[in-house]
């Protein structure tokens, strides 16, 4: 079936630096959504993209359906950015969201 491969599984950054998370899809996806798991275990919406890029503060996301990937860029990382980030993509066939395995992000002083 349709798969979402998220990388890296874990990432450690120093405060003030940046990096990118990536999700690759095994098939063409209709849309992608990025989430961050909060301290209570719930998922907070970060971005929803059907195409192109979106930016919000220090976060920026891109989605290329044709090339089958999406990225989440974090710049000027802060301690409170620590947590687990998930991408989820919606396929054309079933319309269900398919989740990546998550990236555990640790920000160090």
């Amino acid at each position, binding site marked *: 079936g349709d798969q979402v491969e998220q990388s890296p599984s874990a990432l450690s950054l120093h405060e003030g630096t940046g990096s990118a998370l990536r999700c690759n899809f095994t098939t063409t996806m209709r849309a992608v959504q990025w989430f961050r798991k909060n301290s209570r275990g*719930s998922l907070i919406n970060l971005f929803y993209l059907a195409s192109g890029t979106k930016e919000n503060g220090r976060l920026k996301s891109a989605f290329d359906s044709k090339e089958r990937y999406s990225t989440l860029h974090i710049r000027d990382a802060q301690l409170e950015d620590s947590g687990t980030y*998930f991408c989820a993509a919606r396929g054309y066939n079933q319309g269900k*969201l398919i989740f990546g395995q998550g990236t555990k992000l640790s920000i160090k002083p």
Partner: protein
Amino acid sequence: GGIITQTPKFLIGQEGQKLTLKCQQNFNHDTMYWYRQDSGKGLRLIYYSITENDLQKGDLSEGYDASREKKSSFSLTVTSAQKNEMAVFLCASARQDNTGQLYFGEGSKLTVL
């Protein structure tokens, strides 16, 4: 804005017990979902419903029942709780056209003794 309310937030049960989680949303969304999240893993879809009284099996439906009593309400039942079912269960909703954003509840943590 709307909100998704899951009850209870914490549920403790005995092995073999039948346990029910409830979810309410006031977004007026047509589609609702139940996901299970195990530690260190991504979310897996248990059941979803595209409208009142509709049920669709997800990837992990065995051992669960669901009920969409009305548009705003979607409940999930663990038919016979097992120790390896200790996980966080997340309810979500989205607009009918399935292109819309998914919104999640706060989660319900299940512990089986």
